[in-house]
């Protein structure tokens, strides 16, 4: 535009300053980050919150603990591969695992709408029981509330979790170093498509199941084996791309990944092609990335692959000094593009 300074832009549309919450504020993308940075983080200003990790890590009476919370409002409540209960337990367990903590205890808050079938509640609670057992955690406290019909959407669940950190590693984006390998624990996109397909009544030839699972055991196995884990992050809202952008920005380093190495199941790819979605931005509930010194990557992969939930672990890229705070992807046709954070929700395209 340098050669045309007289140009004036007078687009008829107003600048989109929003005075209300819109769905995209919950989408894990830029609007959510804006919300946190404008309203939440300044209000509660402290170093733990500002580290922007999945949970807070602190010392109490000589013990190093990790603490996290998450609320679950997923619709549909039941979907292929899981339900709101499996998410509520595994999600919080995974947040603790991403702090490098061994998950110990959970709380469960159930907000139920008048008229919600007890049979459905029983199903959700049974899912929570099974997942807690599988992850080796106990639900030790909780709360129930009932709201008037129409004031809730069946059932909302909140869980908080406490874990113990049994090592001296500082796991987080600021520990990432140039020369780290970027490991991923398996394929991406299944949870996002499973939810979307059920929610929107899309019928595919094969059912796509959510990857919802606890990833605590492979993570702890890596740490126990002495792998110098620099950063861990689960690939929930916003997916792989958004997660990597967050880490690149927080570490002021460059992350370079190769599309060809990122596994996406054939039916998930097909669904993405139809809907115009990018699997790199789809939510996962049983996938994480690990930043590991390059020379330890093979050993880490070997450990991860011993666990069913991370049997397909692989290296997808590496960390470099520059260009700082950015992520690039080598595409399947050999070109390079920059990955950006997700903007709002992915919306299905017209044609």
């Amino acid at each position: 535009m340098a050669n045309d300074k007289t140009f004036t832009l007078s687009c008829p549309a107003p600048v989109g300053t929003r005075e209300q919450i819109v769905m995209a504020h919950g989408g894990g993308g830029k609007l959510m980050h804006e919300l946190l940075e404008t309203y939440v983080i300044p209000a509660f200003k402290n170093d733990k919150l500002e580290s922007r990790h999945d949970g807070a890590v602190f010392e109490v009476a000589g013990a190093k603990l990790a603490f996290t919370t998450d609320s679950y409002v997923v619709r549909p409540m039941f979907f292929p591969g899981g339900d709101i209960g499996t998410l509520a337990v595994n999600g919080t367990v995974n947040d603790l695992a991403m702090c490098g903590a061994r998950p110990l205890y959970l709380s469960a808050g159930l907000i139920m709408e008048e008229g919600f079938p007890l049979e459905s509640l029983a199903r959700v609670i049974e899912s929570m029981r099974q997942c807690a057992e599988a992850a080796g955690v106990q639900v030790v406290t909780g709360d129930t509330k009932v709201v008037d019909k129409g004031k809730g959407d069946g059932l909302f669940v909140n869980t908080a979790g406490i874990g113990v950190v049994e090592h001296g590693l500082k796991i987080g984006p600021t520990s990432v170093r140039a020369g780290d390998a970027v490991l991923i624990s398996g394929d991406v996109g299944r949870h996002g498509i499973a939810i979307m397909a059920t929610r929107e009544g899309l019928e595919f030839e094969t059912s796509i199941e959510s990857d919802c699972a606890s990833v605590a055991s492979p993570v702890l196995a890596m740490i126990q084996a002495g792998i110098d884990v620099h950063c861990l992050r689960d690939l929930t809202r916003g997916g792989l791309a958004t997660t990597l952008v967050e880490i690149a920005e927080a570490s002021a380093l460059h992350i370079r990944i190769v599309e060809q190495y990122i596994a996406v199941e054939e039916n998930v790819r097909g669904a993405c092609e139809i809907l115009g979605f990018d699997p790199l931005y789809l939510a996962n509930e049983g996938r994480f990335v690990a930043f590991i010194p390059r020379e330890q990557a093979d050993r880490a992969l070997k450990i991860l692959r011993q666990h069913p939930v991370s049997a397909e672990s692989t290296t997808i890229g590496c960390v470099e000094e520059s260009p700082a705070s950015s992520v690039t992807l080598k595409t399947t046709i050999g070109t390079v593009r920059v990955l950006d954070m997700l903007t709002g929700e992915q919306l299905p395209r017209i044609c």
Partner: protein
Amino acid sequence: MKFVDEYRDSEAVEKVAAAIRALVTRPWSIMEVCGGQTHAIMKFGIDELLPKQVTLLHGPGCPVCVTPVELIDKGTQIAAMPGVIFCSFGDMLRVPGTQHDLLRVKANGGDVRIVYSPMDALKIAKENPSKQVVFFAVGFETTAPANAMAVHQAKQQRIANFSVLVSHVLVPPALEAVLDSPDCLVNAFLAAGHVCTIMGYEEYFPIASKYRVPIVVTGFEPLDILQGVYMCVKQLEEGRFEVENQYARSVRREGNIAAQHLVAKVFRVVPRKWRGFGEIPQSGLGLHPDYSDLDAEERFGVSDYRAEEDPECMSGVILRGVKKPNECPAFGTRCTPEHPLGATMVSNEGACAAYYRYRRHEAKALISDK
């Protein structure tokens, strides 16, 4: 994945790119018409593979981007009415009207729903007989048959609570508008493969010969697009201006006759306003008089509503391929996908959004740093 992977094969892609490099002797500007192609070019960095003599211009083929602000306003007005369920394809929801977008209407309690097919909207109408169900029928020739089918079935099945807000547009008049514009830079077109799957490509012959411009019907995968570019460059270098079909695995010369018949039955050709172009004669589809009782504009009394595009809005210059999105002073600063100034920044297929999302300009700087 079959029909995808073989068109994203790096060796095959490089082979065609090399053939283009070997062929080109002069600068040429080729416009890809369809937003889906723009998106693929950005996503895969296809322009990176082209010799510097070949410039890709991004055309007016994103239905979200060319839908005039007036229609968006009509949509938000209807969607905000009590008792209305307003159904739309997803990417229309974020497009700003003069006041607000459909997402805002939804946040304010309006019943706005994303559908994947107009038939879903019809189903919602059957399930909610006490509500008025309105479908926002936008798109090019590609979406017209499915939308026509929904209207036709609603009429046949006497579904009285269903109506459509129609903003259909047609590709050939837009190509002529681009070619007629005095600042036109286009030497050749990649025509939109999916539009031609429906319509065939006979209607492009008169345009190619009148304006002496090569038109190559092209698909959407990286290899398709590069082959389309190759065929355009070959014609240009040889001084030919013909209509050719790169996307033969999907497109037949005559198109899909059954779909065309249905479209001709339900719709008729009308003048349409385009964002960035203004009104183009005979450039859109409106409901045929036989189906006018299903016209949401009439039913909800918004047919007389007018809102003008600002003639200086940059998206018009972008849609005609005269300027690239990153040449706009607001690009990436005052105008981003979260806070769009215009529709080209909203849709996945909008040139500005594609530029922003894949940060092509920055990517080039980043890569050359290395």
